[in-house]
């Protein structure tokens, strides 16, 4: 029951062929496809890693990645690749009810469908919000952002 063991077991389901989507991080990380998320969480829970600190949405190039930050004495991050075409991921609330607010936030801010939770009412954005997902970067916006940076 420890994070080393969980990390070792998670390696078996990691998406090794997508290694270009990894980024240097100060704690253990495992890159997986969104279809493997529930399997990965089951492995973590079996090994006693039950504290989900938060879920972060981040762009790696133009691919949206969701980072599930787990913690048990040290950090372990699941890097979940979101497929651009179906743009959805399963909820963890059946295993970790505490994930609900993080998932609702990410669904609103990044416009992702989280299968299994009710997102019909807004949680953070105004009820009459019309401008889509504020944190989502469309391709044009990514290009524009790069041009604005301090060189």
């Amino acid at each position, binding site marked *: 029951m420890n994070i080393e063991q969980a990390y070792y077991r998670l390696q078996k389901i990691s998406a090794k062929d997508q290694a270009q989507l990894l980024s240097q991080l100060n704690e253990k990380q495992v890159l997986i496809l969104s279809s493997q998320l529930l399997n990965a969480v089951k492995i973590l829970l079996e090994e006693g890693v*039950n*504290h989900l600190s938060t879920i972060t949405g*981040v762009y790696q190039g133009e691919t949206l990645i969701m980072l599930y930050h787990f913690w048990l004495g040290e950090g372990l991050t699941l890097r979940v690749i979101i497929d651009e075409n179906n743009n959805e991921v399963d909820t963890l609330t059946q295993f970790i009810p505490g994930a609900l607010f993080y998932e609702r936030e990410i669904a609103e801010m990044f416009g992702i469908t989280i299968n299994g939770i009710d997102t019909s009412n807004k949680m953070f954005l105004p009820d009459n919000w019309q401008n889509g997902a504020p944190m989502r970067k469309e391709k044009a916006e990514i290009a524009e*952002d790069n041009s604005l940076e301090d060189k």
Partner: protein
Amino acid sequence: MSKITIPIGPQHPLLKEPLSFRITLEGESVIESTLRLGYVHRGIEKLAQTRTYIKNITLFERVCGICSHIHTTTYCQAVEGLLDLKIPRRGAYIRMLLCELERIHSHLLWLGVLAKNIGLNTVFMYAWRDREIVLDLMEEISGGRVSHAINTIGGVRKDLTQTQIEKISLDLPVLYEKVRELLEIVENDRSFSARTRGIGYLSPQDVKRYCVVGPVARASGVDIDLRRDAPNACYAELDFNSVTMTDGDVWARAVVRIMETLESIGLSQQIVNKIPAGEIAVTAKRKVPEGEFVSRSEAPRGEVIYFVKSDGSQKPKRVKVRTPTLTALITLPAQLEGLQMADVSTVIAGVDLCIACADR
């Protein structure tokens, strides 16, 4: 019996910050509750992407109006981690000192709010009166009572003088005695017990399932304290206990927080006794190397986590903030279920909500 739905908030005398509850009652018992956030959502995470690393310190100081220092500390730790900077020990000690003073201030503020919500106005007055001592100390050190603006990437901006150290050493024992009196009231007062014992119970299993952190988790017997479990700054050099109880109700949360306040007073005393001489800050580069960093700290309400992603420029590519209040909020529907309407205010105050934190 017919059901009735009562809205509490977004503007309500019970709440200090805007948050919306919809509480469904059957008779006097709560059968369901839902909540909605976002009334003070300021888009800080998005805004942070447009500002330089150094300007973002000012921004993150304003995530929370109570525990502002821990936010900048955690953010600076993340950026320093990306820069591979080691801050001078004196700087780290000054940071820790303010973290602990802030914990004292936050817990006393909370005790006042809880006492007011359950109708004990005397305790409210006492707690806030005693809180002035620590606010004055923080003003003496940093110039600000709540927003300190003392952190910078690479250390702190203001040194601690000998006069300040003497004042801190003189005032802390006074505060210790006053907090001891408050602990006595909370532990022994009949009215306080009657209103808080057995209310808002969370089992250790619930705490783990909902990923709750901080004093709420410790009051249910789940011993997590990042100052000990993932020590940053120089916490490993100091001697302190993490307070836990097993009752899991609002009363236990009050006792845990006040005993933690006493621990923090002891910690602050140790810090000023042990503070090493030397520099307070090192110079940091403006451009931060590419990479990602997860930084965790123990805020007054529990684990706060910052994720910073850099692409090698002067501005962060992404900053994610998760504040401890969000973990406490999610347990509220479970805590409220089956309670009497009159106890709702106790439970809402009992988890120590900071809505500005939760919304960001």
